[in-house]
């Protein structure tokens, strides 16, 4: 199976199978059942094909693998250049892992314009994968922007009451921010005549760019703003709660599970990769914002009466950990950041699915509407507790590994970072467990809740994979980390030189 042709074609396949599925769906008659089954088949197939990546990945190698690089447009010099390293590979797999679950969870809750929904979902998957595998800055930008439209439409058409407001806010925030990134990309192209990530990185490291010293801080900011809005980092996070609360369940799962990671991935790949000096000099305020995000997100989550909003704010808090880890510039910190991204994708995706399941039954997210749910819905309560514990960071489940690594990296960078960051772990235990207590424990407070049906087969099918993944990631994190490690070392190489330069002086 592991032939050279397949190796170079595999990323194209993984990226465009969902797109091809979406195009085929266009031709389907409007029989909702067939459409759902077909979408499920396509997304499962994509997941299956994407498993080729980790199976044949050479773990010890740091550089990009499965590369494909052919000219696409001669002027400007744009290449169809794709490849993955240990960092991006897992994000691809995370995307393909979550999409079939999104299909399953939307089975019943989407009953109008079903065809369009699944078409958008599959296009979304293609765009997301494309973001992670692109090694040409132009291609990257292309997919980056391409994620916007399906997501805005998913929110705006299939969302809840204030969906239009949320969709426009989401679109405008991310669109305006990414324009700055485009400007920075264009500047690089104007100077270097290439969009190739590796070529640009080499040129910068060798100091071959005219006017670099003056422009680099602005370029850094151009990229950073685009990514910070996506993450979202503290002052620009306001689109996220709206988008999450209004989005349909599948939209929330992809939004929290993958879309936010585009931001942190971008920081890791582009801010650190292209601008090591600027990253280091800007780190203090970025880390400060990340810490504010961790604590602020947690505190706001604590007082949310709306379950979905609570999970949304918890995302802000968790993503703060990722940024903290990235800008600690330590091996442990970056490893941890990567692991938190993956773990958060799995467990928050699951939390949103759980919230969505409850919404299907009661059409509300208000925590006070529930109480004592453990009695009518024992299986549901069990799944929920498992995922909450994973999210809180219980050892041997996935949340723990990442947060532990991030904090140890943060301590090494600066103790106060670690101390403040560590409070975030406590906060997350508070708000999640308190929410769990209010929803599930005690007596059934509302009579309607007495007769709520427990999970059916389809819902269990959607939840089991996340639970298994949470457990395996917690027990055997090395399966993931041994691929992440070399890539992170590679990303940190210029920082080690920088540090030795400082010491030498």
């Amino acid at each position: 199976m592991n032939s050279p042709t397949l190796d170079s074609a595999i990323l194209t396949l993984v990226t465009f199978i969902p797109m091809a599925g979406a195009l085929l769906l266009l031709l389907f008659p409007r029989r909702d059942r067939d459409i759902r089954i077909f979408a499920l088949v396509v997304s499962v197939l994509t997941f299956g094909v994407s498993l080729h990546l980790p199976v044949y990945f050479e773990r010890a190698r740091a550089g990009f693998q499965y590369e494909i690089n052919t000219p696409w447009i001669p002027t400007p010099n744009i290449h169809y250049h794709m490849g993955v390293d240990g960092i991006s590979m897992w994000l691809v797999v995370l995307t393909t892992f979550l999409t079939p679950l999104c299909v399953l969870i939307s089975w019943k809750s989407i009953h109008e314009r079903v065809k369009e929904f699944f078409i958008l979902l599959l296009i979304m998957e293609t765009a997301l994968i494309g973001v992670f595998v692109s090694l040409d800055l132009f291609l990257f930008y292309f997919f980056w922007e391409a994620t916007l439209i399906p997501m805005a439409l998913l929110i705006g058409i299939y969302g809840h009451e204030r969906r239009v407001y949320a969709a426009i806010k989401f679109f405008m925030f991310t669109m305006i921010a990414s324009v700055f990134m485009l400007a920075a990309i264009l500047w690089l192209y104007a100077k270097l005549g290439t969009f190739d990530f590796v070529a640009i990185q080499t040129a910068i490291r060798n100091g071959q760019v005219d006017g670099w010293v003056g422009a680099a801080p602005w370029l850094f900011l151009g990229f950073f703003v685009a990514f910070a809005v996506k993450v979202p980092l503290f002052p620009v996070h306001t689109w996220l709660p709206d988008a999450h609360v209004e989005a349909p369940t599948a939209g929330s799962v992809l939004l929290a599970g993958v879309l936010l990671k585009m931001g942190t991935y971008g920081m890791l790949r582009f801010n650190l990769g292209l601008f090591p000096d600027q990253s280091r000099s800007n780190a203090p305020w970025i880390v400060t914002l990340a810490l504010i995000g961790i604590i602020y997100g947690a505190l706001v989550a604590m007082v949310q009466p709306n379950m979905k909003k609570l999970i949304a704010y918890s995302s802000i808090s968790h993503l703060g950990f990722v940024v903290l880890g990235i800008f600690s510039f330590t091996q442990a910190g970056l490893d941890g950041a990567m692991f938190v991204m993956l773990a958060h994708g799995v467990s928050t995706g699951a939390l949103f699915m759980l919230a969505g399941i409850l919404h299907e039954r009661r059409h509300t997210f208000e925590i006070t509407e529930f109480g004592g749910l453990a009695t009518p819905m024992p299986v549901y309560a069990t799944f929920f507790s498992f995922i909450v514990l994973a999210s809180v960071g219980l050892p041997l489940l996935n949340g723990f590994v990442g947060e532990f690594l991030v904090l140890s990296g943060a301590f090494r960078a600066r103790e106060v970072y670690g101390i403040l960051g560590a409070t975030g772990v406590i906060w997350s235990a508070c708000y999640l467990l308190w929410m769990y207590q209010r929803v599930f424990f005690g007596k059934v407070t509302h009579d309607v809740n007495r007769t709520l049906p427990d999970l059916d087969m389809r819902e269990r099918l959607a939840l089991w994979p996340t639970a298994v993944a949470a457990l395996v990631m917690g027990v055997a994190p090395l399966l993931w980390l041994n691929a992440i490690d070399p890539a992170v070392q590679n990303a940190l190489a210029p920082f080690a030189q920088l540090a030795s330069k400082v010491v030498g002086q």
Partner: protein
Amino acid sequence: MNGAAQVTPQAVEYIRILPEIVLTIFGIIIMMLDPLMDERRSQRTLGAVGLVGALAAIVATLYQSQYPGVGFWGMVNVDSFSVFFHFLVTAVTAVVILTSYEYMEVQQIRAGEYYGLILFGAVGMCLMSSAVELVLIFIALEISSISTYILAGFRRRAAISSESSVKYFLLGSFATAFFLYGVALMFGATGSTSIAVIGQVLASGQPPVLAYVGIALMFVGLGFKVAAAPFHVWTPDVYEGAPAPIVGFMSTAPKAAVFAVLLRILFEAHAPGRLWLIWVVAALSMTLGNIGALVQDNVKRLLAYSSIAHAGYLLVAFAALPANGIPAAMFYTASYAAMNVGAFAVVSHLASAGERYVTMEDYAGLGRRSPLLAATLTIFLLSLIGIPATGGFFAKFYVFSAALQANLVGLVIIGVLNSAVGAYYYLRVIVVMYMREARQEVPVSPVPLGLGVALAISAVATIYLGVLPGRVLEYATRSAGDLLR
């Protein structure tokens, strides 16, 4: 250049104006057929003749491209640059005729000279792109303008349409006067009206003050025609009143032709002092156009303001260096033509009798009632925003990167911020179509064949330019080389 001595033009020189000849002949045929035919049934036949004329002109353009060179005593020049614009204008003409087919029937407008005027207008526009002599350019400009003045007033029963026509005519003639004055001054400054000679004179030494004034006046006249700020005030009213397919026509084809003229005058004639003039006009157009569009509720007015903004983006390319500014501008005109003609085709279909349904409200719920039409309009709007995989994206991209290479960072920043603002109002249309329920059901008739073909052509062109822009850009780059030689 020794053609001046020669008395009668050679046969090959007629090939160099072949598309114009073809268009004129078909225009005259329409004029002659019109009185012979039954009033009510003439529209289909005349439209078919018009369409055949436009297609024949495309073929003539292809044939003409084999015979590059100057003709008619150095007044026209067929090079890959002019062929590009010929092709663009004739293609737009064909698509607009396809769109008009249904529109004219629904609006119950007597076809009469409608299709003839479109073809005559196209003659002027084609000639503008190949003329290399200022007086001929002026004549071509007038041919194209006068046709569009009349076309703008073709919804005879609607007062707003007559207003549109009169307004366009009065302000337009004022603007052409400016252009003519500029030509006269340029002649005074350099002693010639031939662009090539002017270029030589101006490049050889310190240009006289008169030349600066001449350029500025010509720029005012042409700026009016492309609806660049601060000469844009006519645009919203005229676009609102004119028949929708004609707005699609006059917002793309004459504009493309005028941009071709501007490119020739500014770059081939080495026009002095262009930079700051263009800088200011481009920045103003982008900003005023986008801000104006933000508050519009009438889709035609919205697209009118958007066309002002797009003229601004396009002018950014004129401030850049010729080597990449010219291809960027050419690419922009092409992709703007594709997406705007398409958008107006949808608008004219939805407008229905008397252009009743042209407000944002009428588009509510279109995504449900007519998914395919809504999806097509979405493609055009996304392209107007400049989303990747559409022509509009690469157009902006080339323009801005050309400007960056000329170190016009300030202008690029203004442009980029403006395109972010622009995203908002295009998006509003999309949002209304998909996410809002109609308060009152606006009827949508099924798409007839002609319109369907027009939409398909525009949509395919928009996507093609967005996915494989390489060939078109390469061609444009080559033409830029021709132009600068």
